[in-house]
């Protein structure tokens, strides 16, 4: 989705109106860089042992792998306004959400490598990441995040706590009954819930036009009297402006919102995806909207950072990712009998 690129006075106006500070935006820039570096490094390690014959069981990272390169701004723009006590329920493509929620990058990496030092002691893996301390959960089942986040929101409201729950999901998941069921329940009970639909145009391989009777989720949300925002998901500032309002509204007791963020994943649905359903030209076109250089240009225009500052932030992020990956690679695998414990508490 293209919105008018703001002139400098308009950019200053938008940022001032949004309440975003220099520190927040520099922090956001570094998070974007960290997530990008994390996802690309995971892609690199995931590929080990999987060429020339692609075999999901081979190499240091097993199973499926769904990466969010290109979608970083959606997670970061929302995460800026969340506390550790707020809850996030994510999806099969969860790394950017986890990192934006504050999940430690080293334990996250270790879990993806199936190591004993991972978030879940190697029991969950890439699609089943949990961090109780940061109230982060996810599910590999499409459409599962909506009601679980609504349940956390219900608990917060029930106890009179000022916390918010966020459900992330794709536009494909929004076709699941849980989306509209949850919209109804959350609006009915005015739950402190924010549903973020990352519309990356494809549900696995199925283009949006082949699966959606109407082009936008906000149309559905409005049918349930749920406030909605249609945002440019490749623009950190646009996402953050909406997220700030939606989260503040939820926290203040005024009920749920939907943020529909149009975005794009540069990599396949999964690593190994042949991408028969789209062209390289389309991918390149979306790369022109890449959230990282866009935010960099704006920070520069605002006079809030120069090239050296931005390069320094990016280098720090890359170093943290490298440390985390090294931690994961050097960590021990779990003892086999760990598999036999933990069904019940």
């Amino acid at each position, binding site marked *: 989705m293209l919105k008018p690129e703001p002139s400098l006075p308009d950019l200053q106006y938008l940022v001032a109106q949004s309440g975003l500070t220099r520190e927040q935006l520099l922090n956001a820039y570094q998070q974007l860089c960290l997530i990008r570096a994390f996802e690309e490094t995971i892609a690199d390690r995931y590929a080990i042992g999987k060429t020339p014959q692609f075999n999901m069981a081979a190499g240091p990272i097993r199973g499926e792998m769904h990466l969010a390169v290109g979608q970083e701004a959606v997670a970061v723009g929302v995460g800026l306004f969340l506390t550790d006590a707020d809850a996030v329920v994510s999806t099969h493509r969860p790394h950017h959400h986890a990192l934006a929620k504050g999940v430690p990058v080293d334990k996250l990496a270790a879990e993806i490598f199936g190591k004993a030092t*991972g*978030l879940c002691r190697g029991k969950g893996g890439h699609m089943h990441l*949990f961090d109780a301390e940061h109230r982060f959960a996810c599910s590999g*089942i499409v459409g599962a995040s909506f009601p*679980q986040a609504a*349940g956390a929101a219900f*608990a*917060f409201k*029930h106890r009179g706590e000022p916390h918010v729950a966020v459900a992330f999901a794709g536009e494909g998941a929004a076709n699941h009954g849980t989306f509209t069921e*949850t919209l109804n329940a959350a609006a009915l009970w005015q739950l402190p819930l924010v549903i973020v639909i990352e519309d990356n145009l494809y549900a696995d391989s199925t283009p949006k036009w082949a699966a959606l009777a109407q082009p936008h989720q906000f149309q559905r949300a409005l049918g349930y009297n749920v406030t909605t925002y249609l945002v440019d998901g490749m623009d950190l500032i646009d996402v953050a402006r909406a997220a700030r309002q939606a989260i503040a509204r939820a926290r203040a007791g005024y009920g749920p919102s939907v943020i529909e963020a149009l975005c794009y994943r540069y990599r396949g649905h999964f690593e190994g995806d042949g991408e028969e359903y789209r062209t390289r030209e389309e991918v390149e076109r979306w790369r022109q909207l890449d959230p990282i250089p866009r935010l960099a240009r704006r920070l520069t225009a605002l006079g809030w950072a120069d090239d050296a500052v931005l390069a320094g932030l990016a280098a720090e992020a890359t170093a943290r990712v490298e440390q985390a990956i090294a931690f994961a690679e050097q960590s021990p695998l779990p003892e086999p009998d760990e598999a036999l414990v933990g069904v019940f508490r």
Partner: protein
Amino acid sequence: MSMTHTITGIAPAIAEAIDQEMAQRADIVVLGEDVTYWGAVFGFTMGLFQKYGRDRVIDTPITEQTFMGMAVGAAAVGLHPVVSLMFVDFLGAGFDQMYNHMAKNHYMSGGQFAMPVTVLTAIGGGYGDAEQHSQVLYGLFAHVPGFKVVVPATAYDAKGLTISALRDPNPVVIFGHKLLTGLPFLPFEGIADEPVPDTPYTVEFGKAAVRREGRDVTLVAAGLMVHRCLRAAEQLAQQGIDAEVIDVRTLVPLDTATLVASARKTGRVLIVDEDYQSFGMTGELAFRIQADAFDALKAPIRRLAVPDVPIPFSAPLEQRVIPSVERIVAEAQALFGAPARATAR
């Protein structure tokens, strides 16, 4: 000395248990369809709405997957939801959130997230409700790791097992047989005016109850079938066969030791189940018993269950497939060499 009062049926006993726990604890909320005025239809939540109001006893939209998902999310942040799955037959509409999330999140998270959820559901036929409202299906839940499976046969057990469930940090599903509820609109085959302690108490999971001691044959059952076995035992006694009747009480965890001890004593075992026959409780119990009592068995273990057909509507058809007292007697006699009239293998 503890005072008692009398209760007829498991439904008021379950409701009393929830009431007594809710009065002591703020973390319990009741969710589901028709849980207020109608007491979850089968009486398990009767009276709670009048006492605790809609803040804690909440009618949900008819959206099993969404309110089961909400229970998962609410439990993850510290509530203990009591969720009504009105008829167990409706599990298809909500089972993803139950078997992929409720049952697994504790394990998948490496033990980080407790999942204290108590699910109440009504089971069984015998009153003409046919294929989609008469099933038992606890075997499905017992098959998936992560559910505790509770099948109360008496009011005393119903109250004590429910309090145990409400104090358990794991998902517990309580399967209450409709013909044991004691509700005026259904036949009743349980114990009338059963003495039950006034104060809260627990019945431990994984402890079977020997309902009748005997020397010649062991009848094993759960729920309604315990009572039919007891009636069958009376008839068998008139024929000089002294039957022991064991109520397993909980399928998960299962008290294998009590079953094996009884099998070793009598040498003959009949397992009676109102669930479908194949790949279910009868096969599992038979396997566990033979594994530790094979040398003491005087005859192959027999079983009587619903013979792998749906529960039909018309009375003679329904009576043909749900184990009856007469059929239990015949199957028990067959353990002594008499030809069984039943066709169950």
